[in-house]
């Protein structure tokens, strides 16, 4: 049984660019368990925060630590990320997954087996040999999720994964996310879609202008938001 890399700690996190702090002194700790949604209007700093947690971006100041440890390649192996636009290689559907598994040093036979399993779980089993780039947007995003799932990450970051998808594809993607959650992966996702947050969130971190304005369970956030900005946002009035 692998040691858990959580909790993820973010301390005094700042990201400075374009003459302002796009992420402004964030402090929070994420534990195993609840599906965490970072919610907020455009420009709130959600994507930047996610990238700094995953290690893709260096913060201007502040620290990201995993159970007290700093980011490292070993820790990266326990994480996965899905982007708003799925980035797939110019090869077959199953090839995209086996590529990621090969990076983890998994041998050929196991790679194929795990890839096939992941495809089956996400409903892409019949398309294993298709060219990945020929898939529809929804199918591609499901493939990105399958790829992440095959890696059995302890934590999955998702950055507005359904922003470009139609409602049907969105539901399929959300179902997969929930399935991964049930299988034990910590979900940390950003969205500006309130309805989606209602569907998926167990807890909400509400960001605005780079600051964490409110954090509570989903029930509390959607029924009794404490901050004025959250209330405005939920009413559809806080646009940026």
């Amino acid at each position, binding site marked *: 049984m692998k040691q858990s890399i959580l909790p993820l700690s973010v301390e005094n996190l700042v990201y400075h660019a374009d003459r302002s702090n796009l992420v402004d002194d964030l402090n929070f700790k994420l534990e195993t368990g609840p599906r965490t949604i970072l919610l907020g209007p455009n420009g709130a700093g959600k994507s930047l925060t996610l*990238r700094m947690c*995953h*290690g*893709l971006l260096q913060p201007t100041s502040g620290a990201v630590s995993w159970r007290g440890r700093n980011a490292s*390649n070993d820790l*990266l*192996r326990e*994480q*996965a*990320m899905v*982007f708003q636009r799925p*980035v797939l*290689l*110019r*090869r*077959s559907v199953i090839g995209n997954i086996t*590529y*990621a598994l090969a*990076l*983890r040093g998994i041998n050929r036979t196991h790679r194929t087996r795990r890839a096939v399993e992941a495809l089956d779980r996400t409903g892409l089993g019949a398309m294993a040999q*298709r*060219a*990945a*780039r*020929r898939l529809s947007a929804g199918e591609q995003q499901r493939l990105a999720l399958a790829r992440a799932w095959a*890696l059995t990450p302890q934590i999955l970051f998702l950055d507005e994964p359904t922003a470009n998808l139609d409602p049907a594809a969105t539901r399929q993607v959300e179902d997969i996310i929930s399935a991964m959650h049930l299988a034990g992966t910590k979900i940390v996702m950003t969205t500006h879609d309130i309805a989606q947050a209602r569907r998926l969130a167990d807890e909400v971190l509400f960001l605005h202008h780079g600051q964490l304005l409110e954090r509570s369970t989903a029930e509390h956030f959607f029924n009794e938001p404490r901050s004025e900005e959250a209330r405005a946002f939920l009413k559809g009035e806080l646009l940026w």
Partner: protein
Amino acid sequence: MDNLSQALNAATRLIVTFDRDLAEIVFLSLRISLTAVGLAALIGLPIGAALAVLRFPGRRTLVVVLNALMGLPPVVVGLIVLLLLSRAGPLGVLGLLFSPAAMIIAQTLLTAPIVAALTRQIVEDLWTEYEEQLRSLGASPGRSIWTLLWDGRFSLVTAVLAGFGRAASEVGAVMLVGGNIDHVTRVMTTAIALETSKGNLALALGLGIILLSLSLVINGAVYLAGDAAKRAHG
């Protein structure tokens, strides 16, 4: 115009009668240019991709220099290789001057920067798209280079074809280091130059038409192959 119709006649006659001298020259031209392009690709693809992905001091200067090297005049490359391979030069002991090997060396030096510079641009564009995902998956920069080279293969083929075009069409370098020796280092371009200097303008033009046709055939074949591969694997 009279010359042009004579040229077409000359070209047709040479092809239809399987003229042996022509076949020899064509075969040598292809052997030299294809070998040079092959070597240039082996050198240029990884260097271009590395330049696109890795970050180090002086990188931007290197990119500018590489782009500038695309414009290397063939005759200058020929001159440099001539001086290097001459018996009076540092590599004279190899005795490579006036041989196909010397021509391959010169054309490789000429073509590699083209392949590398175009590769750099292509891979850099891909890297912008792929970087975050590849890093998230844990791919090292070194691994990413090979991944991107494979993923960009259709665009990179065009870069290699650009190199081939340069190699197959130049005359300055191969003339100097090859010597245009009959049956040994005479290729299409130097043969055209020779026939022109002998006043055989129609024949020279005919050979030019054959050279162009050869280039068309090769490019056509590569395109069809790429098309088939794309349809099979996207």
